[in-house]
């Protein structure tokens, strides 16, 4: 049971090649950190894992099966900017319901208050919105999470709260997680293993 990347190749259309033959695996239940300087292709890797971008060569398999082209994707990406990942014309209740009926307990663990459900995205702070994005990604069918600079925008206390809640849930469900960040301290605390993007070239 693992998210396996083998022989991955990708370059932006008309741009330089980012990956030629990248291979690594993320075991279910483990946390893998991805580091690298700005512009080195960390977010692109996240988008490839989540299926938002298509690899030029190589393949990505989830627990033995290739990434599905249609329908629900078992690898869910959590973006850096929650305000862009939420349609501003939707109330928060609908934002959650687009994924699934999120159980009360998950909301409590993530610190989402019930009165926030009836608000518009503009009426919540970035940290509050990001909790919704996390809850949304925790679909029952989700097997792996990719957190792309998920808390880079927040203050230390919010960061700590969000990571504390999320790692608890991830451990409990036995999910695998890829943490993309350029904060060594954060990765030291969270990850079982670390990959430098440069090494994947």
């Amino acid at each position: 049971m693992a998210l396996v990347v083998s022989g991955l190749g990708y370059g932006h259309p008309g741009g330089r090649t980012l990956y030629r033959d990248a291979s690594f695996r993320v075991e279910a239940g483990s946390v893998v950190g991805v580091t690298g300087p700005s512009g080195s292709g960390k977010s692109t890797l996240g988008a490839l894992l989540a299926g938002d971008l298509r690899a030029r060569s190589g393949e990505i398999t989830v627990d033995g099966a290739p990434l599905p082209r249609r329908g629900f994707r078992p690898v869910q990406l959590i973006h850096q900017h929650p305000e862009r990942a939420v349609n501003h014309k939707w109330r928060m209740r609908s934002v959650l319901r687009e994924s699934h009926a999120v159980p009360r307990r998950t909301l409590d663990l993530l610190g989402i208050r019930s009165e926030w459900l009836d608000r518009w995205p503009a009426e919540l702070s970035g940290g509050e919105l990001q909790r919704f994005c996390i809850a949304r990604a925790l679909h029952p069918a989700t097997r792996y999470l990719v957190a792309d600079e998920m808390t880079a925008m927040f203050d230390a206390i919010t960061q700590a709260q969000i990571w504390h809640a999320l790692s608890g849930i991830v451990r409990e469900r036995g999910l695998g997680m890829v943490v993309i960040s350029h904060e060594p301290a954060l990765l030291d605390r969270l990850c079982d293993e670390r990959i430098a993007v440069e090494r994947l070239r």
Partner: protein
Amino acid sequence: MNAPPDPRLHSRSRPRPRLRARRDVVVSLSVVVLLVVCVIAGHLLLDDAALRPNSAPRSSPPGVEHPFGTDHLGQDLFTRVVKGLALSLGIGVLTAAISTAVSAVLGICAALLGRRVDGVVSWLIDLSIGIPHLIFMILLAFTVGGGVPGIVLGIALTHWMSLALLVRADVKQIRGAEFILVSRGLGRSPLFIARRHVLPLVLPQLLVGFVLMFPHVILHEAALTFLGFGFSPQTPAIGILLSEGMPHISSGMWWLAVFPGLALLLLVLGFARLGDRVRTVLDPATSNG
């Protein structure tokens, strides 16, 4: 020492453009609503008897009994104008709705359903723009057989292109948004994304398109009818009134052409101004008002 405040900085005499636009919307909306209510009320209250040949004085100039005068059959021109405007309004709503719907569906599909669909829609747009639209419209109306369906389809199917292009461009910007990627990752279908994510975001654009389409439809309906491809001559349509009244303008019976013309002008200008102002309020970036 404190200098006295510059009065120009605090003057309320020149409101900011957007505020002024909001006020203009209210004004032009009230004019249009008043006009529409009058026309509908008139249509319901006025008696059809005045449209049949009757004992009323023939070709009498405007007066107390017949505010817009009568024609050579003794028909009351005021009644005919009101009935004509009511018909124009109905046609306007129907046609603008159809053409806006066509623009929305084709524009959204072109931008969301991949390169092949986009190619087909773009080709269709180029083709439709390429044909001179008055000729295209006459052909369509003629093929359907004139009357209400001919006019509605003829105008609706020749006027969806520019709005479709606008919608397509808008959706192309929206489709890369992160919340749409998320939605796709959650297994949502293109139809769901179009309906729930994209449509609410292009709705203002569609609303403006609908209102701006309206005066166009009314003018074209009058033009088609005037040229003889629209309504049959006994229908009290504005175009019929105008084409009947035109020959009499030089023979002294000016009221037969002037009153229908003025009524048409008022309705069209009202809607055109309303659409323009609504765009300024909803979408200040693309309007230059």
